[in-house]
């Protein structure tokens, strides 16, 4: 079998909370707690979940912007978790990130041309070809050459996101981690960016890790989808199966909660009780048992494992 582009094994990230008065009682926020998945070459893996489920932390660890507490990240078979900062810098050319907030992720004092050029400088792209490359990238993402001399504030949200994408593409990465790339955008602009991401994927054979909270967007763009809840992946499968035969009670509730733009559709809605528990003090056993309509006694005691129920369909629930 072909080695997957990315393989994540038992990844954990615990953030230490403020220590007690006497330095004792150290407690942790378990932002990501034992997450494993693979991303194949050329596919789009979607990570979906509500706020605080650890989807962004997972993306940041993959980028090596955060060091994992435990676990391994293999990039093309090579373990990158133990690499030094210098080694990482050379390999980071292979994976780039697109951020949520196009207003905050572009330096307001740099011209758009300089912003796109920066990764080229960092990764030693020949000086005489840089300008040409920048103009080409602007064109690729649907902007024009004259935009290079403008500052980010002169652009609309959608155009800024295009600049962010151009910057990510600059060094010809294999993997792009997109963390909520369209959630700050208006509906009509959102679809432009989603289409652009799809076109670029085809043109440059890109692999995406697409992190978002909007199920309809994730379903549209992804090949496979992982559903996260409180630091864990509760279900992972291809998007058709996830939509047609969701198995985990949380996935079912999440799917039924999404408002669908069709007024004739009358659905049986699964309303979950209560709020999402805090990741600093997650429930015992299965973290979902406090809100789960099917919870049994076993669920509050034993942590379920992510098991392969059918081919390529992973679920972490005691029901299966």
């Amino acid at each position, binding site marked *: 079998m072909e080695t997957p582009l990315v393989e994540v094994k038992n990844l954990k990230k615990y953030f230490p909370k403020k220590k007690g008065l006497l330095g004792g009682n150290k407690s942790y926020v378990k932002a990501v707690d034992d997450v494993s998945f693979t991303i194949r070459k050329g596919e789009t893996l979607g990570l979906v979940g*509500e706020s605080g489920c650890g989807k962004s932390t997972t993306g940041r660890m993959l980028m090596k912007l955060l060091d994992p507490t435990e676990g391994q990240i293999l990039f093309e078979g090579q373990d990158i978790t133990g690499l030094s900062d210098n080694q990482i810098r050379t390999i980071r050319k292979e994976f780039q990130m697109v951020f949520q907030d196009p207003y905050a992720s572009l330096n307001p004092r740099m011209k758009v041309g300089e912003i796109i050029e920066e990764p080229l400088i960092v990764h030693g792209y020949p000086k005489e070809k840089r300008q040409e490359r920048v103009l080409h990238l602007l064109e690729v993402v649907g902007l024009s050459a004259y935009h290079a001399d403008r500052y980010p504030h002169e652009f609309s949200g959608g155009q800024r996101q295009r600049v962010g994408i151009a910057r990510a593409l600059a060094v010809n990465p294999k993997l792009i981690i997109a963390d909520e790339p369209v959630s700050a955008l208006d509906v*009509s602009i959102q679809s432009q960016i989603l289409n652009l991401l*799809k076109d670029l994927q085809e043109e440059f054979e890109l692999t995406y890790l697409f992190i978002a909270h909007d*199920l309809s967007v994730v379903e549209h763009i992804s090949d496979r989808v992982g559903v996260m809840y409180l630091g864990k992946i509760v279900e992972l499968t291809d998007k058709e199966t996830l939509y047609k035969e969701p198995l985990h009670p949380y996935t079912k509730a*999440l799917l039924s909660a999404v*408002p*669908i*733009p*069709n007024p004739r559709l009358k659905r049986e809605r699964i309303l979950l009780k209560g*709020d999402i528990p805090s990741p600093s003090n997650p429930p015992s056993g299965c973290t979902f048992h406090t809100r789960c309509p099917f919870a049994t006694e076993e669920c509050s005691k034993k942590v379920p494992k992510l098991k392969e129920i059918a081919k390529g369909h992973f679920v972490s629930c005691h029901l299966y």
Partner: protein
Amino acid sequence: MAEKLLEIKNLQTHFKSDRGVVKAVDDVTITVNKGETVGVVGESGCGKSVTSLSVMRLLKDTPGKIVGGTIEFEGKDLAHLSEKEMRLIRGNDIAMIFQEPMTSLNPVYKIGRQIEEAVMLHLKYDKKQAREHAIKMLKLVGIPRAEEIVDEFPYQLSGGMRQRVMIAMAMACNPKLLIADEPTTALDVTIQAQILDLMRNLSKERGTSIMMITHDLGVVAEMCDRVVVMYAGKVVEEADVFTIFENPKHPYTEGLLNSVPKLGQKIKRLESIPGNVPTPGNMPQGCKFAPRCGKVMDICTKQDPELKMIDKDHTCRCWLYQESGVLEV
């Protein structure tokens, strides 16, 4: 025929700035009948929030001013009431829920006190009655341990709980009209489902009319009876919810509907509207949507179309459905 509760007619709210006048709301006509939920949809900057702030007369501390039109509510024109008269209506007959439950609650007052304030003012309850009423309202919106929560501060609650408190506060004086400005945008989907369910039940039980401002077409489809679509400060189309989703006439409405990905729908590409929403300082001539419209004609770039009745209870602002030859030279 349904009884009218609120009738906004040709409302114009303009903002003065150094660079000239920004016509944030420019000719908006919306009617809300008794017991009805009306959705106002549009993208950022289309003027939907300014419309609601105009109805509530909350523009006092901004450079914004209502410069034209009327806002009729139970025989009174809200656009021309004095601040004193408006105070009797605001929070009493018309209440509002905002998008950010954290920033719209006062962080230094206990939950109970914030609900009691309006109740004591409008319903003339004494302190004890007001407190009981506050607890009753908290229970009504599904807050557990209402007797304890009433003495807690907003920061102690989660986002969904805060939004429930906002709803409790808004519904405390049993308003006839509830204006909800993006009430669930800041919430997670499963919490959004809870809040929408709550709003639907409350409006049914109490006969409250809702004006629901949102950009989420899914929320509109689930909640609303009628839909008003806005673009660049104007109403471009209005019809009942089924007509809007099944037989939209304005190219913008159509484009908007096609650009949303829908669950379970297998399409390779989304349709999208090219270009960007025009900025207030850079409004195109003629129809404001013309530069992005796929069906643009000569006249569109020259003259602004009017909002015309094209079918029973279906209005649309587009030259496609208006008699040509009205171009005045």
